[in-house]
């Protein structure tokens, strides 16, 4: 049981990193990674949303969708859950940390449409994980996202100081860097778990 959890955790963070290997959740990855502090804040917000979303969507699937034979409503029900969760997180954040709320700006409500969150919810069902495994997978997928975004933000902060040719400044060099980071994570593919 514990071994299974560790395998799921490690694969979610490294081998199947949601941003750099599965290419989900690229929007906030590119949008909020100019500073490491905001990137970390975004990572924390996404972790909370993904963890809660994994739990609640699993419960919805198990106790509402399956018993009533309405599995076809999976997508819409999951989006409903995620949207409500993100609204909740926004309200809490605005109250607790107005600075972070301002810094994340438009990217906070964009977590709703973030394919990584819906992706993790759907994958949980697809792989037929039980409740604990779903929760672990969701949380660790978000931790992998946080790892990727913080690493990327660190590199981008350094790039600010460098002499980059005018045509490549800002966005193009960011995309090239993301590609290189993704290639680096390919190294984990051979990890035998």
């Amino acid at each position, binding site marked *: 049981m514990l071994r299974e959890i560790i395998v799921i955790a490690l694969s979610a963070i490294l081998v199947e990193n949601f941003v750099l290997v599965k290419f989900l959740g690229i929007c906030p990855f590119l949008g909020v990674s100019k500073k490491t502090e905001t990137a970390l804040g975004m990572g924390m917000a996404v972790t909370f949303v993904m963890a809660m979303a994994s739990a609640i969507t699993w419960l919805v699937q198990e106790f509402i969708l399956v018993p009533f*034979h309405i599995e076809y409503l999976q997508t819409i*029900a999951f989006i*409903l859950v995620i949207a409500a969760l993100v609204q*909740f997180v926004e*309200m809490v954040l*605005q*109250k607790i940390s107005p600075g972070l709320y301002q810094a994340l700006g438009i990217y906070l409500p964009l977590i709703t449409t973030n394919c990584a969150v819906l992706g993790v919810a759907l994958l949980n069902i697809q792989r037929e994980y039980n409740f604990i495994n779903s929760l672990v997978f969701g949380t660790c997928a978000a931790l992998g996202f946080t790892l990727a975004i913080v690493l990327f933000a660190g590199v981008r902060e350094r790039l600010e*100081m460098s*002499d980059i040719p005018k045509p490549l400044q800002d966005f193009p060099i960011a995309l090239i860097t993301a590609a290189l980071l993704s290639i680096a994570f390919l190294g984990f593919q051979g990890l035998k778990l």
Partner: protein
Amino acid sequence: MIDQILAPVISLGGMGLAFGALLAYASKKFAVEVDERIPAVIDVLPGANCGGCGYPGCSGLAAAIVEGKAPVNACPVGGSACAAAIAGIMGVTTEETERMVARVLCYGTKDNAREKYEYYGISDCTAAAKLGGGSKSCAYGCTGLGTCVKVCKFGAIKIENGIAVIDPEKCTACGQCVGACPKKIIELIPASQSTWVKCKSRDKGGDVKNYCSVGCIGCKICEKACKFDAVHVIDNVAVIDYEKCVNCSQCVIKCPKKIIQGKLETKKARINEKLCVGCTICKKQCKFEAIEGDLKIKHKVIEDNCVGCEQCVLKCPKNCIEMV
């Protein structure tokens, strides 16, 4: 068949209602109260988010002003017009503040200053300054790599010929460049002050001559020329006291290195003979012996001696002196 329709409708509708209720409760519990004066102040502020007031952005300053933590004239960019508008919102009165501009106190261009090494590194003044104070032989000089240019939100700074130059028209005295410069050679000076020393090198004159053709050598010619006790050579560099300086430009003319910036062409004073009552106040005031005339006799300006310091204009009780 009916339960095939009822089941999704009830379950999805039920979930929607449940989440809606939860969010409604949360919005009450986590409600953030906003004083309506804050958006009004934010509207009046320039909106540049430059941080010159010391608060995080215009919304930060607006919140501080409404809470009473910041004065209404805290925004250096908005100036007195903005301060007056904010005072109107807050219901208080304001005082006039003098407009300042930032100036770079260095004239060590590529032609004037010698380099001690060629710098190949990050295009950032803070980084270059760590390597023995920069590539210029003068450790006090401008490194010219543009860190100040990057922080200026108003596009007022340019790098010309290896040093930073500030456009006083565009400068709003927000103070970001002052903080950003690692050599601390950008200062805020009153905008009306046209006379300022463009050097901060504290090295001895002999050394300065070797590495910069225009640097201040601390020869004290300006100190002796100043009749208003406004220029002093402190630590081998000329420093102007802006409270005492009247912009007569004597130091500008006398400086052998031409390092003091100022008006070279000054106007001459002219006394309106019809209004003059012969009180000799202007004659006593003039430090350049440029006014002649005794008591009760109409005074006249000796144009050759007049330097255009305008002190007589300020002192004349009949306002009969003008500058031409």
